[in-house]
């Protein structure tokens, strides 16, 4: 039987671990509430912005805008027609730290699934990694992690993300990439998160519809108000011109999609960590309990042994 001291040390270490995970749980719970609120509030805007584009794309000929079609050929003004060799940009949104269950691994798995499905290699992809986990994973495997953001604050604003999306748009503008996907964790509930991939560029009505459908929660305050009938096509007046409106609207939309992915991931991260820490705390409590019982048994055994030694010694002396 393990010595009493060893058991005592074990109990103490489990108790300490439990304290730490309990503290982390409490911290995550606060962050979770804040980020969930933000994610849910942001959904209304994202849905509105995307529905504007959806309306527009149904009634206007938007198919010629470069951000809405796949790059086919690209005429470089300096070099004439160049054979296109477009790459695909993947925006991977993960957390900086682990201890959040399967959150990051499912995002990475999803990303690798997309890479495999599109037959892409490290040469055909550009990565934008928000969060250290994703950045390290793909950098270690030889991918071109062009932009790397770590320690991003929870209350990053939409305009802060502009620097990233502007860069993204500039790669598109020079014909380096033709597709951009964002891979993130969609927040469904505190106990349920799902890794998703959405196409950001080209902005197609189908992709937009998919995103809108994905960001509307099934129930609750932000659930879609009773399935609205699809309004008949409106003939839009567009001021100043279709191109100018799209030039204003599309970068905004792309930024919103990325931003949306970011805040959803943050809400998911804190929820997942909270749940993971809760189960770690519970487990630690269980372990303390079972080792305490073990300890008590061992102590009782030691006492019994001592008593029997004493009594047998007394018997012998008689």
């Amino acid at each position: 039987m393990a010595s009493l001291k060893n058991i005592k040390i074990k109990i103490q270490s489990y108790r300490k671990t439990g304290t730490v995970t309990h503290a982390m749980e409490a911290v995550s719970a606060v962050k979770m509430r804040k980020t969930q609120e933000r994610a849910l509030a942001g959904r209304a805007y994202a849905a509105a912005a995307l529905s504007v584009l959806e309306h527009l794309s149904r009634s206007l000929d938007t198919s010629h805008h470069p951000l809405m079609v796949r790059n086919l050929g690209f005429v470089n003004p300096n070099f004439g027609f160049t054979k296109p060799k477009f790459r695909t940009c993947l925006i991977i949104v993960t957390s900086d730290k682990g201890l959040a269950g399967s959150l990051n691994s499912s995002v990475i798995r999803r990303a690798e699934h997309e890479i495999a499905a599109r037959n892409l290699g490290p040469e055909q992809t550009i990565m934008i990694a928000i969060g250290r986990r994703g950045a390290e994973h793909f950098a270690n495997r030889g991918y071109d992690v062009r932009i790397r953001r770590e320690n991003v604050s929870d209350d990053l604003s939409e305009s802060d993300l502009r620097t990233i999306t502007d860069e993204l748009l500039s790669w598109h503008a020079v014909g380096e990439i033709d597709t951009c996907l964002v891979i993130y964790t969609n927040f469904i509930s505190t106990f349920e998160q799902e890794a998703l991939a959405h196409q950001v560029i080209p902005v197609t009505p189908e992709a937009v519809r998919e995103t809108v459908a994905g960001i509307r929660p099934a129930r609750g305050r932000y659930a879609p108000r009773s399935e609205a009938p699809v309004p008949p096509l409106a003939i839009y007046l567009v001021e100043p011109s279709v191109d100018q409106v799209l030039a204003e609207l599309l970068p905004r939309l792309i930024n919103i999609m990325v931003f949306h992915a970011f805040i959803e991931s943050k809400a998911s991260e804190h929820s997942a960590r909270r749940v993971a820490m809760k189960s770690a705390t519970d487990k630690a409590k269980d372990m303390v309990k079972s080792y305490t019982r073990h300890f008590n048994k061992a102590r009782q055994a030691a006492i019994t042994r001592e008593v029997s030694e004493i009594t047998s010694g007394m018997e012998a002396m008689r």
Partner: protein
Amino acid sequence: MQNYPPTFNLVIASVSKTHFDGPALAATVPGSEGELTILPHHAALVTTLKKGTIAVRVMGGERHTFPIDNGVLECSHNSAIVLL
């Protein structure tokens, strides 16, 4: 004759916050091509907005103003969305 509602549904939203969401009688916005006022049953319209102030008149004669830097207005089916 069909009775049209005297208001339209107006949403003014930025990512962090919904500034206005509800029925409005009129909204004057700084369009990039000049100021315009949206009344109920405005024709379908999409326009970019420039820096200025949105003035909204609601039932009961109350007025709300929102300063903006830029934005996009979409208007169709008796509802208007302003994205900031």
